């Protein structure tokens, strides 16, 4: 034991002597420092690594490093049928799982050419807007916590728990819902769910006003957010930003109004646009969006038509389980759809929706088989992270946290 320790000491001494440890600086105080805001950090939303070159506290340049959550979604999609991929889409932007389900199903239905009855479209609008509310609640909580107001995090999660109760009754699951199916939905909406949504919406504006008043009248919050992370209108379009970031820089663009999908052309809503382009403008845009979503939900619930929820296309739409166990035709169709897939025609489509982070798009290439040939997910967080170096040039380290909070990246979709 002692002999081994001596051997180790000898080895260390020899290593120290042989390596040259002379380093010369002209002036030891005149050097840049490279700081690693590593993958595990309380203020980065998920696992993203930022390498920041600093001169004192001023940022000279910044390089994001992704890939710590790369789970191989696109390769998985090439090996499983269209139905089997629906639960995987939940885990992309995991703060608003219903919106991802809706986006994927719309792309698949566009490819296969399936028409969905209007009741299902209205329910999908309700799901997408509830998902936007839930995602923005987490954004509000985490951005306020990063800047220093921890109270708003708990208030935001209180509201989010109520939305998760609604999802529990509507879809059966609290969090990762997998609610939409090709040709419609997994199940119909019940009157209990509708009354829960109405109760929730009646008390939400008061809570939102409470959260906003705590933050917006606070001198520290305004100072930390105003003028920080500025990006101009031309840069925003050139960098491919979408969603609240684009609208906060003065570009009036919203996919729900410009390329309407589902039944958004029959609903009446206003698109908030601010021209400042900094963190505070993005905060206001998202708070306005929350209020607009409440209005859209009220309209959708009022206009909900009666009728079937799934389209009547037996070769492509999964039949109900009660009929599968009793009737021959449904059994055969169920077997064919589950084992061989829906076999859409040869071609390619790209369909995008306005998710809470930006434009979430699915590009599917099909070769006529049950599995897609290529599935590409155009995730908004991936593109938004590219603009971090432009927003933070010349800023300070504490601004990094505020800007990432306003960007609201979700690494599940950025890393796929």
């Amino acid at each position, binding site marked *: 034991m002692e002999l081994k320790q001596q051997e180790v000491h000898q080895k260390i001494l020899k290593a120290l002597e042989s390596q040259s440890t002379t380093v010369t600086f002209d002036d030891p105080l005149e050097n840049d420092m490279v700081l690693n805001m590593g993958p595990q950090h309380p203020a980065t939303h998920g696992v993203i690594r930022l390498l920041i070159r600093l001169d004192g506290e001023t940022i000279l340049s910044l390089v994001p490093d992704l890939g710590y959550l790369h789970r191989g979604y696109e390769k998985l999609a090439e090996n499983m049928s269209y139905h089997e991929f629906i639960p995987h889409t939940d885990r992309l932007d995991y703060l608003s799982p219903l919106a991802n389900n809706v986006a994927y199903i719309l792309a698949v239905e566009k490819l296969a050419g399936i028409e969905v009855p209007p009741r299902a479209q209205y329910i999908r609008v309700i799901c997408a807007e509830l998902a936007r509310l839930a995602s923005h609640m987490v954004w509000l909580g985490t951005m306020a916590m990063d800047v220093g107001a921890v109270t708003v995090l708990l208030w935001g999660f209180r509201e989010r728990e109520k939305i998760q109760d609604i999802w529990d009754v509507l879809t059966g699951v609290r969090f990762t819902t997998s609610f939409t199916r090709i040709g419609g939905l997994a199940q119909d909406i019940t009157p209990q769910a509708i009354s829960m949504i109405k109760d929730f919406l009646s008390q939400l504006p008061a809570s939102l006003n409470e959260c906003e008043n705590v933050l917006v009248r606070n001198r520290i919050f305004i100072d930390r957010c105003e003028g920080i992370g500025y990006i101009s209108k031309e840069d925003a379009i050139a960098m*491919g930003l979408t969603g609240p970031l684009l609208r906060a820089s003065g570009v009036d663009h919203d996919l729900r109004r410009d390329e309407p999908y589902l039944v958004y052309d029959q609903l009446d809503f206003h698109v908030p646009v601010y021209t400042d382009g900094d963190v505070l403008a993005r905060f206001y845009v998202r708070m306005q969006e929350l209020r607009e979503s409440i209005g859209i939900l009220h309209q959708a619930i009022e206009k909900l038509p009666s009728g079937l929820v799934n389209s009547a296309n037996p070769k492509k739409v999964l039949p109900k389980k009660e009929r599968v166990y009793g009737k021959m035709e449904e059994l055969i169709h169920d077997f064919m759809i589950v084992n061989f897939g829906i076999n859409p025609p040869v071609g390619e489509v790209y369909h995008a929706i306005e998710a809470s982070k930006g434009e979430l798009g699915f590009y599917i290439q099909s070769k006529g088989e049950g599995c897609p040939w290529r599935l590409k997910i155009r995730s908004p967080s991936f593109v938004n992270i590219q603009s971090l170096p432009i927003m933070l040039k010349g800023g300070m380290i504490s601004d990094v946290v505020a800007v990432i909070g306003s960007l609201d990246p979700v690494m599940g979709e950025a890393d796929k």
Partner: protein
Amino acid sequence: MKEKLLDKLNTSFKNSIESFSEFRNELTIIIKKADIEKICSFLRDDAELSFDSLRDICGAVNRASVDRYEVVNNLYSLKNKYRLRLKVLVDADDMNVPTVTRIWPTADFEEREAYDMYGIVFDNHPDLRRIYMPEEFEYYPLRKDFPLMGIPGSLPLPRK
């Protein structure tokens, strides 16, 4: 809009367009590899067409033969609210494609992803390195000959 677009492209770049097709109201144009930059800057700078936003770049394996790859650019015009898809075919023995980062800076990360997943090399890209997989990874995951479970031993794990 579609007729205007095809007219303008046919008058200026007749030799570069190989074919075009339409499926579910979406126009796809296949162009030659060498003329990407010219066509893309024309599409962006033209006042009527104004395709000022690049929404997505992806690599893909050609459906006809597994040895050929393609690079697909999804463009969007904010003014006309119109989408267009440009495709470039790449052979397996010459995987170099000109980059479009000078025209749309958002292409930076997307082209790095296409390089990481397929091995398509983009000339004149400012910073072409792997983005999702670690730098030492030697394979290109989305190619059809790479197994889903990966090759054992290709990625290191820390010791227990």
